[in-house]
């Protein structure tokens, strides 16, 4: 008796099943890469907290009104010019830095600024204060924050290139991949301490509401 050939299994519905699964995943999942501007909020001050006195020249005032207009240090400015103005302020280095544990950081020897008497003393003393209105558009507010961060990262990159030959972005990237590397950690901390990001958000005004 001749052996009968195995009948072929009908796989026609396989595609349907796979499609079903595919469509299920298409519908229930999202493909967003979550990214954003990270910020660390300051802790809630105790009731009897007295804010430290900061010299007027060490504060970089950025104001945003409810019409989304930008005012920097008392003058109108376009957002595109903000980064360079902030850089000039942070990098000014017109005096000596703050004293930590009894040891002064001394004058800023890596600053390339104009060393103007009327601008900031040292990057670790320079405070950027952003005051916005409750009615300000969030998009504009974030753009301003972004420009300020860009100023810092350009300065950090420059210093990092000078000291270690690589940009700060690359340094941080390398550190992220190799958390235990003490040498890298020291470098990252060094740059971060040279240009600490001190951006404070003032309580917003409410003229727009």
């Amino acid at each position, binding site marked *: 008796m001749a052996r009968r050939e195995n009948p072929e299994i009908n796989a026609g519905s396989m595609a349907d099943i796979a499609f079903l699964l595919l469509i299920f*995943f298409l519908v*229930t*999942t*999202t493909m967003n890469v979550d990214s954003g501007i990270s910020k660390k909020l300051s802790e809630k001050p105790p009731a009897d907290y007295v804010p430290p006195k900061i010299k007027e020249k060490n504060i970089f005032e950025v104001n945003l009104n409810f019409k989304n207009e930008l005012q920097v240090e008392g003058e109108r400015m376009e957002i595109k010019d903000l980064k360079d103005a902030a850089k000039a302020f942070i990098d000014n280095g017109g005096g000596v830095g703050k004293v930590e544990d009894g040891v002064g950081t001394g004058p800023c020897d890596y600053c390339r600024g104009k060393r103007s008497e009327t601008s900031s003393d040292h990057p670790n003393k320079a405070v950027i204060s952003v005051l916005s209105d409750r009615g300000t558009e969030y998009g504009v507010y974030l753009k301003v924050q972004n420009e300020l*961060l860009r100023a810092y990262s350009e300065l950090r990159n420059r210093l990092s290139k000078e000291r270690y030959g690589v940009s700060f972005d690359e340094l941080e990237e390398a550190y992220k991949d190799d958390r235990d590397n003490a040498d890298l950690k020291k470098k990252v901390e060094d740059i971060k301490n040279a240009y600490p990001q001190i951006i404070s958000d003032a309580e917003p005004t409410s003229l727009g509401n």
Partner: protein
Amino acid sequence: MSKFRKKKKGMPAVNTASLPDIVFMLLFFFMVTTTMRETELLVENPRLPSATEVKKLEHKSLVSTIYVGKSKDPKYGTSYNKIQLNDKIATADDVPAFIINERTKVPENQQPFMTTSIKADRESNVGTITDIRLKLRDVNALKISYSASKGDNN
């Protein structure tokens, strides 16, 4: 003659055996690159502002998301300042409860690394964001991330 007539067949069936393979490939691609949608959006998908200094958010399980935007349901009004927590439209006063609830899902030693991601529409107001921020500070949720898409803005 009949010999030839017998040979006349219909169109041969197109071989679709590789179709499931292709679909499976697509399926796996989507399974790998996407994440499960956690909440139904009650606000219109926020048009995120674009920024250059963005950082990727890591550890999805440590991120709690607050949406701010225009409500899809007109009964909540038409402004872009509606806050969505979990599956409902809420006010800034509900933020602390939301954060504390999120904290219970995370082991204690991971809690300091929890991040709150604020996904707000470009046209929402800074006031709303400030309200959220003050409430976050009250419950010591200090790490926040303003969600933004990567792009150059000049």
